[in-house]
């Protein structure tokens, strides 16, 4: 810069050092260099912004076990498209479950609803299907089913098994109440006219454990066949039933034999019923016949108290009115009557009064078929001697049923309407009667003076023994004395018979047609005939000519 002559080293300044060439060129602005960090900043910021925007929510899912889940490897897939990745797998603080933390893609944020479900997809072989084979090579992944709730959520409880039906599938869910789950399980098919239209989603007990609740899914468009009065029944496998009607075997399709199943149908007269809304509760009957039988809209509960054994009576046994099933047994319990300190068997029945139709009286028009109320009906029936009785329906199996029948001789009784449910009067059953009379016999037998009888009998036997001994002696005597005599007698008799035989032979000879006796006899008879004719002639002649007796026969004067 300061090119001054006071430089201490003038040797450097020589003519040998050339001057720099000055070329005027247009110069770029030195500020341009700042474009580079600016661009870098823009790129960096955009990358950060993109990752930040792409960074979706973090969710936690709890599973019972972490089988097949690996941090950083296991994916979360929806419709087989990856939407997330497991970040970590930890054990919950209470050690009851495994907590899976996962990153979800930003655009899948909307899938995280309160009812979104997650499950681990593993190779799985069930009765009806084999699934998840792809996971054998690629490892397990977490499947997902997006819910429809409006509520968002970030922590979920994972399912242990994949759901049978995903939520986005069109159709409707219903709830079935059953006494018994039978062979049904999650995934069991639902048939409508033998066509598979749905599946069982879950099987669980209700709160008090009395019923089994089955969540079922009917696929669209078949769900419109489910109406408010649709009947569902077990179409499970092979149905053996043993009741008062005898022994029955029912089978459905092969799949349902393996898997169990449910069938449904709407009765013809209920076809106009409105379509059932989703989530509606239905009864699940055990058989089709049972389901179709229960079309009665009026169901009344009554209570019967028996003081005899109800062995052979089962829940579901029919209540029979002269061969017509008018109800069924719903519950059988033993009750201790505090007053008499006796255990009575309380049987609850379901009664369908509609099945007894009252005939409309002349002049009176009754619009409804039951006509009079069932209370009046039953009161009247009881007044006329209707009682409930236990009867044996099937002697082979010992099944019993309840018969309502007329017992005009029964002691007067009334229905106890105050108890809940109302109590119908009962009479002792046929088996009971039989048992009672048997008991009476036994009692009488017990009252017999068996001891004395035994002594007497022994005495009698002793004397009988003596008698028999003397009889024996007598027989020996007879044998010794009488038998030879008898033999002789027999020999003589045989001789006599022989001679008689011979005589008879002679007689037969004599009596033969061509025998001499016969010939002689015939001649004699002929002579005798002639003699008789002559005698008749003589008689006739004498009648006409009595004088001939005196004068003798006149020569033919005529």
């Amino acid at each position, binding site marked *: *810069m*300061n*090119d001054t002559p006071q*430089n*201490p*080293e003038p040797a*450097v*300044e020589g003519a040998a*050092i*050339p*001057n*720099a*060439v*000055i*070329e*005027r*060129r247009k*110069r770029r602005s*030195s500020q341009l*260099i*700042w474009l*580079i*960090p600016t*661009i*870098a*900043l823009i*790129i*960096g910021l955009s*990358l*950060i912004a993109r*990752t930040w925007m792409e960074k979706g929510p973090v969710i936690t899912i709890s599973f019972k076990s972490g089988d097949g889940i690996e941090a*950083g*490897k296991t994916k979360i897939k929806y419709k087989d498209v990856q939407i997330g990745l497991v970040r970590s797998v930890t054990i919950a603080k209470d050690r009851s479950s495994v907590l899976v933390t996962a990153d979800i893609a930003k655009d899948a944020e909307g899938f995280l609803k309160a009812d979104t479900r997650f499950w681990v997809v593993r190779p799985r072989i069930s009765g009806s299907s084999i699934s998840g084979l792809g996971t054998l*090579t*690629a*490892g397990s992944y977490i499947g997902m089913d997006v819910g429809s709730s409006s509520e968002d959520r970030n922590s979920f409880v994972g399912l242990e098994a994949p759901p049978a039906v995903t939520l986005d599938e069109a159709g409707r869910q219903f709830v079935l109440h059953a006494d018994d789950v039978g062979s049904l399980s999650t995934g069991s098919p639902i048939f409508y006219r033998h066509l598979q239209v749905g599946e069982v989603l879950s099987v669980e007990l209700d709160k008090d454990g009395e019923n089994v609740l089955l969540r079922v899914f009917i696929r669209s468009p078949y769900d419109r066949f489910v109406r408010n009065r649709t009947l569902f029944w077990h179409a499970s496998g092979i149905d053996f039933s043993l009741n008062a009607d005898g022994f029955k075997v029912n089978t459905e399709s092969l799949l349902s034999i393996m898997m169990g199943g449910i069938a449904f149908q709407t009765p013809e007269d209920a076809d106009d019923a409105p379509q059932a809304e989703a989530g509606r509760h239905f009864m699940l009957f055990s058989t089709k016949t049972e389901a179709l039988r229960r079309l009665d809209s009026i169901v009344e509960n009554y209570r019967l108290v028996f003081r005899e054994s109800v062995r052979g009576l089962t829940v579901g046994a029919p209540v029979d009115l002269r061969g017509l099933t008018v109800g069924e047994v719903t519950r059988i319990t033993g009750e201790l009557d505090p007053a008499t300190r006796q255990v009575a068997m309380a049987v609850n029945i379901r009664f369908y009064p509609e099945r007894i139709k009252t005939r409309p009286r002349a002049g009176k028009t009754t619009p409804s078929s039951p006509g009079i109320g069932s209370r009046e009906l039953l009161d009247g029936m009881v007044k006329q001697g209707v009682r409930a009785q236990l009867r044996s329906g099937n002697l082979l199996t010992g099944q019993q049923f309840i018969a309502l029948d007329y017992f005009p001789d029964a002691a007067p009784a009334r229905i106890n309407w105050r108890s809940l449910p109302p109590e119908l009067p009962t009479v002792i059953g046929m088996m009971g009667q039989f048992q009672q009379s048997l008991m009476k016999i036994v009692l009488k037998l017990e009252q017999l003076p068996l001891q004395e009888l035994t002594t007497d009998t022994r005495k009698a036997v002793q004397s009988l023994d003596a008698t028999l001994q003397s009889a024996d002696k007598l027989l020996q005597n007879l044998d010794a004395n009488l038998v030879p005599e008898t033999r002789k007698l027999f020999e003589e008799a045989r001789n006599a018979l022989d001679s008689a035989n011979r005589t008879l032979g002679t007689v037969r000879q004599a009596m033969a047609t061509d025998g001499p006796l016969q010939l002689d006899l015939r001649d004699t008879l002929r002579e005798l005939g002639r003699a008789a004719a002559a005698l008749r002639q003589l008689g006739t002649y004498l009648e006409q000519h009595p004088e001939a007796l005196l004068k003798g026969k006149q020569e033919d004067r005529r």
Partner: protein
Amino acid sequence: MGWPGVSAASRGLCSCLVCGLVSRLDDDRRDAHCPRCGARLHFRRPDSLQRCWALVIASYILYLPANLMTMMETGTLISYRTDTIMSGVIHLWENDNQGIAVIVFVASILVPLFKLLVLTLLLISVRRGSTWKIRTRVQLYRVVELVGRWSMLDIFVMTILAALVQIQSMATVKAGPAAVAFGAVVVLTMFAAQVFDPRLMWDPVRKEKPL
């Protein structure tokens, strides 16, 4: 700190950075050229600090995505993984390739960071006119210049793998967005080291001890 001689600039002399010819330059004009090779002549690189700062800042900015984002995507029939540089190092270490892990870690993480920090240190010290440990700083600068290109190791590996391993569904290797950022960091730091004029480091010494 004793110092022999005076600066060439103070005598109006300037050496060509390309061919090494010393020529006389009356004043620090921006349009001076080497009379032998025609390269531009400066007493000191114009805007050296400014440009270096710009490049270093840009490198800092890109260093973050280079390390945080996916460097390499490897997919095989049974697995699929995405690696950042650090996760790749950890993966190598866990798979008993400690040696390679150390090399990758040093070449891809430590060295770029070291370069950036050294350049920053140099820039700050020059800006402040510091003479503190000037020899060490000059050594550092030489190391930075020397080692710069070796940081591309990761990029080389990536490039080779991505080119070789493409068996469609069986196995694929793809470079992620971090590869670009990382490459940019390496290149920018190299430029920054080049743009930085080490002669500037000595100017404060002369000012401290005016001859």
